[in-house]
């Protein structure tokens, strides 16, 4: 199996206190990795470090076998950040314009958008069933619809790996079910590797094939999602109230 991302002994702190302590994580081709953990445990920070938005104070990141600073093939990566929908809602951009933006580095600087690019945009919107909204202003959509648009933007390049930071927040239950169905399709049929941060622990443990839990700045990773083991880990991180949560599904 090909290793797509490798986090090696990474330490990071925003000011003095370390948010990540010697984190190690390998992500392989075809993985559907769920990352859970309490608020403030460093999940978003870890994603940002993998994407070179933040620099680790110690350790290194490899992306597709290259040191992250030498990695140039950003079209292979899709990212929907946490609270993607908290942008300036007065921004005068249509759904189409937003999704097309992720094609820009493929189109190249100084070059215009062509018809084949428009078709790619349309296809990405079709995947999330938002193609009918392509001419709408992004600020005039509901939060869940906006979230779908950002997922389409992340998909438009046909990425090999998709990073999603709490993608189902603010999405109704039906759409959430649809969303998880879509993720399974992307992972199983289109062979896209998925890294998803989420608080839906019940759903996550059911869907993913790999599972990671952050707590106390450390990361505990497991390849299989054998139920008992996960429950033990979650108990350690969240405390005893975890039992209730995990038995809900």
């Amino acid at each position: 199996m090909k290793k797509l991302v490798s986090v090696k002994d990474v330490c990071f702190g925003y000011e003095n206190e370390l948010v990540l302590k010697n984190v190690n994580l390998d992500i392989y081709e075809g993985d559907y990795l769920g990352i859970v953990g309490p608020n403030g445990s460093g999940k978003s920070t870890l994603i940002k470090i993998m994407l070179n938005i933040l620099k680790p104070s110690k350790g290194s990141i490899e992306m597709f076998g290259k040191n992250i600073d030498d990695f140039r093939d950003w079209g292979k990566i899709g990212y929907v950040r946490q609270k993607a929908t908290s942008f300036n809602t007065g921004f005068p951009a249509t759904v189409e314009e937003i999704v097309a933006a992720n094609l820009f580095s493929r189109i190249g600087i100084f070059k215009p958008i062509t018809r084949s690019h428009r078709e790619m945009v349309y296809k990405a919107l079709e995947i999330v069933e938002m193609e009918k909204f392509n001419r709408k202003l992004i600020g005039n959509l509901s939060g869940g619809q906006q979230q779908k648009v950002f997922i389409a933007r992340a998909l438009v390049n046909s990425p090999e790996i998709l990073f999603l930071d709490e993608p189902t927040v603010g999405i109704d239950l039906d759409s959430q079910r649809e969303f998880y169905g879509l993720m399974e399709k992307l992972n199983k049929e289109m062979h896209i590797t998925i890294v998803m941060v989420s608080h839906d622990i019940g759903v996550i443990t059911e869907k993913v094939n790999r599972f990671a839990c952050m707590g106390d700045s450390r990361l505990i990773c497991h390849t299989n999602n054998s139920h008992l083991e996960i429950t033990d880990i979650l108990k350690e991180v969240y405390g005893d109230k975890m039992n209730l949560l995990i038995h809900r599904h």
Partner: protein
Amino acid sequence: MLELLQYGFMQRALMAGIIIGILCPLIGIFLVLRRMSLIGDSLSHVALSGVAAGIVSGVYPLAMALVFSVLAALGIEQLRKKYEEYAELAIAIILSAGIGIAVVLISYAKSINVDLFGYLFGNILTVRSSDMRLITGLGILIIMFVKLLYKELFYIAFDEEGARIAGIPVKRINLFFIVIIAMTITLSMRIVGVLLVSSLMVIPVAASLQVAKSFKQAALLSVVIAELSVVSGIIISYYMELASGGTIVLLSVIILLLVIGFKGVMQKT
């Protein structure tokens, strides 16, 4: 009306006006959407100190203003990167320094006959052919570059972090963009004056944002509104002997109010 065009200065003023009428809103839309409007103001004050330095030292003032404002732009970009939380403070400091240097130099040069009023508020009668060459040459070059980088500038304005991950060279484009702001301000100085340049960058954009249905539309519409204000402003200011910058900006404010009023009426019905 046509007889106006017989005057050389009028031809120059209109030509220059048309170019800055494209430039200002085209740059302004990114300034507004990135909430960087204050940068325009502070760079224009630095440009004024460049003009003063040019007059005192006997160097062509617009060239000096260009050098000053581009250097200040690079300074702001450095400060913006280093002290992200205090970026506004850095901009305010540069603004104050700019106006301070300008005032000191101008008072030092008070024996020289300076058309200060023209630089502050714009004066179409003073557009010389050397200014004209600079404005058309550099102006057209900037318009072309911005058009070529439009999609990248759009992405950065909407989502800087996303743009970086999508592989857009955000740092280089930001640097390029701030230098272009400085150049636009210098070029616009003759027509609208330093005190009003940033208004011409912001007000037509504010009007077009009220009604635009896409980013492309917002950009095109803001240029149309700016051109309307600039061309009619130049003509009116000639006949009524008014400061051109003030007239242009007032016209754009009137258009803005009309658009807001129109939108209000449409929403009620």
